[in-house]
């Protein structure tokens, strides 16, 4: 019984946001996270920022991984951040982005609370390790 109490499963939302139909990367990440022992909730394609926020709040995930390849990150990510804040869910949620983010846009995203950005070439192990180390401490 004690072992069950000590063990906490990391829950992640893997989210595809906006008009972006490329979900191969999201699928690969979802599977890798699952194999790492995480519980993964996959949003499905073409979700609005509101839908992502609803899912993140209701599922009480530790990690929100947003997959963006459309280039609309500068409009969509702030909406997700605002939404999470509205529900008091921003502080203790680890927000990461995977996809193609131009170098110039990175500082702005990190500034608004994105913990890390994983671009092309980022290794799966590296990503999983980052999540393990940075998933928010909760009781």
């Amino acid at each position: 019984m004690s072992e069950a109490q000590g063990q906490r499963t990391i829950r992640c939302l893997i989210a595809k946001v906006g008009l972006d139909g490329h979900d191969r990367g999201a699928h690969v990440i979802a599977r890798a996270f699952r194999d790492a022992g995480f519980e993964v909730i996959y949003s499905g394609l073409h979700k609005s920022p509101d839908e992502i926020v609803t899912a993140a709040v209701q599922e009480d995930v530790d990690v929100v991984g947003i997959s963006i390849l459309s280039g609309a990150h500068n409009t969509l990510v702030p909406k997700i951040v605002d939404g999470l804040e509205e529900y008091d869910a921003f502080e203790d949620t680890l927000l990461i982005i995977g996809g193609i983010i131009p170098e110039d846009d990175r500082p702005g995203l990190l500034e608004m609370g994105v913990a890390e950005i994983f671009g092309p070439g980022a290794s799966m192990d590296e990503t999983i390790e980052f999540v393990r180390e940075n998933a928010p401490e909760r009781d």
Partner: protein
Amino acid sequence: MAESDTDDAEAAEHADRTLVEELLDGKHRALARVISKIENRSPGYRDLVSALHAHTGGADVIGVTGSPGAGKSTLVDKLAKRYRDQGLTVGVIAIDPSSPFTGGSVLGDRIRMASNTADMDVFFRSMSARGHLGGISTATADAVTALDAFGKDRIIVETVGAGQNEIDIVKTADTVAVLVPPGSGDDVQMLKAGILEIADVFVVNKADMDGADRTVQELREMVHGRGDLAGGHHPGDGLDVALSDRTGESDDDGWEPPIVETVAKTGDGVEELLETLAGHSDWLDDSGRRQQQARTRYAEEIRTLLREDAAKLVAEEVERRGGLESFAEAVLARETDPYTVADDVIRPIEDCVERRE
């Protein structure tokens, strides 16, 4: 050191009290967090559920089960939408299997909730059937308690119908809908193996597919045959026991599970299903069956908790005496035997209980 421990405990208790207040106040984040604590069996989760219990009893709980691919999630999505259109609030708990190897899982039911995904008043929560000690059914029942206390009008519990676990899960529901996809004799066979008894309503989903009529026909025959089964025509096949639990009784005062045909994707038949579910809910009230079911459910919950708590007590005692391994070693060396060991471990607990009488 001891002082700071007390401080920590007090702080945690205070945090939990706040959490309960926020949940009752309608804060979604608090509801989500309480369900996480229930799932993780975090310290203090029992007090949380205790505190919420007084505020329950307002929700109608509907279980939806069926084989993989039967269309459960899509149908649940449509049901939730209709309930919302009626101005009701909805909670959904969707249970997915988890990998026995890594403990990880991909919980995919949310994808099908296309009609409600941005609606905060459809509180959709995915749960994995991870190695819950008390069984996933305890966690589900507690999560239902949280949603009920939050004030949800309708709570839908969705799970793959595959075995005893799932049957225990849907027993947390007032009304159970069993989905059967058309055109597969195997599925009707599966029903015989234990799902049949728990159905209050059968739903032949994907009713636009070939073979739907035959499936309906087969189900109808089976439903009519249930009375005979309960009558004991098949003694010793295990059905009798299960039947006496729910269906055997319901046959007495006239609830025969209706068979509803739906096409969840288009929404065909969903209205009729809603009426059927409402009809069963009314019947529960009129026949006094709702209370009776609740009584059985609570008794079962208490029994499960006691079993767990007692097992924990014993496990601690075993630990204090050097662990199970050492006992096993002693038995192996023919120094003692399993019965003597069990007696020795239980005796102090027994003494304690008897002394109090």
